[in-house]
């Protein structure tokens, strides 16, 4: 599976949580950090933590983990081709970040692609905004997306109302785009909240501790 979307839509948190969930279920999991556009807050920052759960973390070699240059580690082709591995791709944001999927697409026949949306982010706060950027990203990726993910949140200030408001907007976008909503992301501190779509409960691993 691959998580795509705009800058700061929550792709990395969801990819990490998904990889951890699959690993805890006993799957052989690899997480590929394909974000070559953001300088910080990438899943590679939590590599050691993920590896403790037996997850193979695919990142550029050595010191190049600190770079923001378009390097695709060759292992990515391996984890996408190996049927025994559940591959989770954490893709960089916006048109420049998603361009990598075009390059990988012949290896992605069995990869489900999730378009992650936070309606409390600039540019995807309306149905029209979501539709516009969905099309832009899909054109750049040269692959079709399979699902939308409703990830409306305000970090530590997220409330049940914020999540529900996001679901409403994403639902409307889903109708226009004719693509289903896979799930709604819910932070663990609101795990009992009432959602329209299936819940995916996450911990926020990237949150700053100060």
């Amino acid at each position, binding site marked *: 599976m691959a998580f795509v979307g705009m*800058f*700061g839509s929550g792709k990395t948190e969801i990819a990490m949580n998904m990889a951890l969930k699959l690993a805890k279920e006993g799957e052989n999991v690899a997480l590929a950090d394909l974000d070559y556009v953001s*300088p*910080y*807050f990438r899943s590679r920052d939590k590599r050691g933590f993920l590896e403790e759960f037996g997850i193979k973390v695919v990142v550029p070699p050595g010191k190049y983990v*600190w770079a923001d240059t378009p390097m695709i580690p060759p292992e990515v082709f391996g984890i996408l081709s190996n049927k025994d591995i559940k591959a989770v791709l954490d893709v960089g944001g916006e048109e420049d970040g998603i361009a990598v999927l075009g390059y990988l697409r012949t290896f992605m026949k069995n990869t489900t692609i999730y378009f992650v949306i936070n309606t409390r982010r600039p540019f995807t706060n309306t149905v029209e905004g979501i539709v516009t950027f969905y099309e832009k990203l899909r054109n750049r990726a040269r692959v079709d997306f399979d699902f939308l993910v409703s990830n409306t949140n305000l970090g*530590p*200030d997220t409330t049940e109302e914020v999540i529900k408001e996001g679901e409403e907007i994403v639902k409307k976008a889903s109708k226009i785009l004719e693509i289903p909503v896979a799930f709604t992301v819910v932070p663990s501190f609101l795990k009992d909240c009432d959602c329209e779509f299936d819940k995916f409960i996450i911990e926020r691993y990237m949150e700053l501790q*100060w």
Partner: protein
Amino acid sequence: MGEKIMVKGTEAIGEAAIRAGCTVYFGYPITPQSELTEYMARRMPQEGRVFLQAESEVSTVNMMYGASSVGVRVMTSTSSPGFSLMQEGISYMANARLPAVFVDVVRGGPGLGDIQPSQGDYFQVVKGGGHGDYRLPVYSPSSLQEAVKLTIHAFDVADKYRTPVVIFADGMLGQMMEPVEFPDPVDLSTLPSKDDWALTGARGRKARYVTSFNIDPYELEKMNLVLQETYRKVEAEEKKWEEFMTEDAEVIIVAHGTVGRIVKSTVKMAREKGIKAGLFRPVSLYPFPYERLSELAEKVDIVMTVEMSAGQMLEDVKLAVLGKARTPFYGRLAGVIPTPAEILEALMKEIRR
């Protein structure tokens, strides 16, 4: 105030500038602030305003000079090497008395350095990286809500004193995400009038010019004295700082920006150990809040400075403390972020000495 949204620091500053009435933005991409340029590329046309990507930072600053000369609110953003390239133009703008807002999202240096967060541009930004006797008001936010407030304030200060103003944001502040609220956009017709100096067309009035040049040294000295008078006013009126648990503090830690935020955690950890620590966080780096820090220094033995640099703000801290307390320093360089625990360890070492 509108509803809360989740933003990156770069977006917070960009949107705040739009709300403050920034009508022209020039920029050239550089990590870790390119998202600010990208944000403005999308948002400025939506507002019917001007976004222009220049061919370099040198042309950016000269475009700033031109746009400011006609009286509009103008901003650019860059990161350390880009800010270096702008220095000549900033010095020209200072003497031409041109209001403008510069955002320096500081990264590891010197030279090409790296793309991780740093505060190593303090000397350059605060003491003046260009030539001649000029100063720039500089603000260092430590949260995104504060970045919004200070960006809007920066435009007001720029217009009030007719000077370029800098937002000093390290890379972490530019890249981190927080929920913020934005104030309603300012009504452009309510902005301060610049009709008494801006180049608005000379029909019906005497022609005027905006320049940093005067071949007559006595006349140039007069221009310099106007600047100096302005800086004395800025120093009297524009100091800003935050204190955290300083009331009963026995040791003071001085830190700005992201490090100020980290040190808050250090102060709490120290207090759990029974050490009465407090944070003094300069918000305006120029004018530096010397007097208040000087007062606080009288009651303590240690005033420790922590920076993501080799000790640059430390010189201003020493000027404030003037030997009344010990002034140790702890810093990380090149883009490494100190943790609350390692700062506490450095503080403990000083206390035991």
